[in-house]
């Protein structure tokens, strides 16, 4: 085991033990689970030379020993997937995927894995900090005397995602694979901790759906910032993947210019849906409803309805309720998934549907919607216009948002207010 800070600045000796310089940096190839060390940067006579790892016979806290006496510096070139540990990672910010936060690298831990030296973990704990400050020893003695531990904290390299700026010196796109697997809410938390350009980098690496999910979890001001920083075409793609009700709220907050531009680039159908939703007041049932629900005619049988569900499921926000409409799209009944499954396949749904469905009007206040959802224990409540046409549904998660007082909603570590973003 070796910490990078223990090797940096130590002497490099050639085959005969003659000092030729000091260790300036190590180079690793990223991509593998634990990146192998592929080169060493030696500082000699005030300049840096790169050496292949193959020419190094040993490296420890005492320094490096080379297997040659003649240095061949001509062959080595830093490849695109290689990074310099000290220059690109030390003291930088990284994303701790497991802990879901952005932390700073105190030191890097190298270990022999299958006979060669690999980067295995990032030291983010107090012991690493003390080691870098050169006071780890005395501190430990002191702590020992007081019967205290010096906390150590490492993050396995596998759980690390370097933020974009960290390795800006290298022309390399960070895959952000680990990030993409996080829950959207956690991803949103992390993205919110990043600076603007890093954020753009993470969003760029995500697919449209993952980006849409993560953006959906963010605060309105952050959503607007991110969307306006994106290239309009990409912003349109991401909006199409979002729930229409969320997309509508977001689009409504955009600047006039961006709104026109981005809506113009969206698929016609999706853009119209969003625009329609935007016409409702933000604090009304129409403003928080989604248009992605399942509605079927009363003449279908239970089996046909289930088939229809299979077709529609990918876009519908909830399938626990199936709404039944007449030819004029008026709401005439509702079925639960349970009703459908227990019914005989050939029964026409009008026979067993609940034909006095609870619904709210598009102009009903948010509180009213929440009240209805709570009173009837619904997972979603249908929204109808003045003539009884089914316009959308409000799902329980959107309904209870209004119950949360503002400060209790996700608030991220931030010192300063974000009023500027909203005013802009």
């Amino acid at each position: 085991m070796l910490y990078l800070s223990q090797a940096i600045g130590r002497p490099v000796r050639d085959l005969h033990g003659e000092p030729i310089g000091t260790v300036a940096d190590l180079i690793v190839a990223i991509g593998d689970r634990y990146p192998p060390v592929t080169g060493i940067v030696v500082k000699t006579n005030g300049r840096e030379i790169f050496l292949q790892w193959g020419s190094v016979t040993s490296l420890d806290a005492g320094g490096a020993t080379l297997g040659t006496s003649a240095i061949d510096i001509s062959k080595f070139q830093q490849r695109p997937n290689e990074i310099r540990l000290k220059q690109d990672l030390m003291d930088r910010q990284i994303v701790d995927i497991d802990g879901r936060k952005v932390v700073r690298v105190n030191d890097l831990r190298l270990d022999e894995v299958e006979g060669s030296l690999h980067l295995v973990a990032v030291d983010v704990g107090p012991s690493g900090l003390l080691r870098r400050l050169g006071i780890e020893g005395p501190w430990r003695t002191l702590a020992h005397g007081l019967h205290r531990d010096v906390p150590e904290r490492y993050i396995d390299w596998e759980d690390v995602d370097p933020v974009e700026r960290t390795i800006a010196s290298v022309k390399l796109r960070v895959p952000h694979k680990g990030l993409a697997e996080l829950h959207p809410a956690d991803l949103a938390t992390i993205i919110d901790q990043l600076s603007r350009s890093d954020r753009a980098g993470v969003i760029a690496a995500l697919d449209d759906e993952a980006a849409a999910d993560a953006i959906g979890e963010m605060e309105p001001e952050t959503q607007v910032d991110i969307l306006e920083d994106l290239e309009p075409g990409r912003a349109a793609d991401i909006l199409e993947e979002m729930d229409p009700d969320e997309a509508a709220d977001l689009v409504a907050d955009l600047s006039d210019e961006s709104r026109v531009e981005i809506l113009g680039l969206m698929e016609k159908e999706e853009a119209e849906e969003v625009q329609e939703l935007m016409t409702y007041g933000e604090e009304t049932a129409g403003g928080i409803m989604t248009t992605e629900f399942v509605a079927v005619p009363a003449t279908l049988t239970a089996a046909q309805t289930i088939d229809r569900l299979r077709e529609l499921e990918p876009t519908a926000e909830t399938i626990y309720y199936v709404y039944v409409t007449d030819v004029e799209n008026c709401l005439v009944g509702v079925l639960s998934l349970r009703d459908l499954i227990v019914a005989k396949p050939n029964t026409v749904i009008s026979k067993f549907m609940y034909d006095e469905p609870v619904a709210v009007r598009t102009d009903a206040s948010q509180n009213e919607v929440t009240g209805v959802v709570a009173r009837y224990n619904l997972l979603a409540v249908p929204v109808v216009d003045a003539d009884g046409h089914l316009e959308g549904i409000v799902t329980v998660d959107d309904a209870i948002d209004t119950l949360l007082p503002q400060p209790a909603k996700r608030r991220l570590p931030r010192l300063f207010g974000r009023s500027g973003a909203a005013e802009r």
Partner: protein
Amino acid sequence: MKAPALSLTPRAVNRVRIAAILGVLGPGLVSGFADNDAGGITTYSVAGAKFGYDLLWVLLISQIVLFFTQEVGARLGLATGQGLAGLVRERFGVRWATFMISTMLIANLGSIVAEFAGCGAAVTLLGFQSWIGALIAAVVVVVLLTRGSFKWVQYIFVVVGIAVSIAYFVSAVLAHPNWGLAASSLVIPRLSTLPAYWVAVVATVGTTITPWGQAFIQSYVADKRLGPEDLVGERLDVGFGALLTNLIGAFIVVACAAAVFAVHVQVDTNSPHAVEQIAGALTPLAGAGATVLFAIGLLAASFLGLGVVPLTSAYAACEAFGWETGVDWRMREAPAFYGLMIFFVVFAALFILTVPAGSLVQVMLTAQIVNCLLLPFVLVFVMRLSADKKLMGPLVSGRFLLTIGWLGTALLVVLSLTLVATSFLGF
């Protein structure tokens, strides 16, 4: 796929509009108003009351240096989206970062003590014991912490800033100052070899340009997620903020010069009457109510400082060391952040309790001097970072800005050395 940095550029073209400029008006303005905290008001008052118009030239110079240092700070925030402490850690390593943070924390601790002293002095003017002031200050910090949002504090800053400036402006006009002398003093330095003179000079500079102000503007710009395309608006903002803060300072000096200095009141900053004497600057406006008006202004000014300095300090330290920052974490999740805040409050409160009420003005002045002495250590990092092409991209300091920046830093070093020379070596 596009490189992430490039995705920022499409907006750059159409962003320089009035609305965009108004949108970024903020960080510099807030920072400027926050400069006139308890230490600021007291220092300007003492400068005017003890030396009349003589120190106005210092205000002009510190205004220029303030503009350029704040401009660099804002530019660093715009270009990197990071705070100062984080950048120093990345660019110069953990040891230099620790050095800078320690320097800054000492200076900031001084400022926090000054805010507590301001509260103490204000309540003694109103006839209470000074410990009540310390208690009020501690409560304010706790309230700000639990409220978390900085948004509403901004508006308070601006309102208090404007109210204070109007009060002093009116009072200055009513006192019939020698406007001609004031104007000439602004551009013609009247030097002196008196140690007290240089103490006042250094304190005046130290209260205007501060280590925390440097960290504050950069973090604020970064946290507002402003980017390179906001450069023009941000420069206007910073310029406006620097102008306003010094205009207020100038009116305080003029009011004190006309209403206190001109009537031959000898202000001794170590006497219990010092606060009452400098409050006299508001007599032309408020008559017998001047003391109360000054006390209220001083209290509000202390709150301004308490709203930013402790948070900015804890924020900077945690940023550099990668600890959880911010009031949205619970105590157990962010022990360093809360630990620092608690340390600041407890230290400042205990300090004020041990200081006799008569020395509160001296405590505030000393804190500003400490700020000025430590400032160059912070500015050296700022200037070096701003010259880093790789870090700053197109926003890198050109030769002109860099020259001015280093000249300003050098000037501060010279000032500090002069103070040391006159005070301790007796030249």
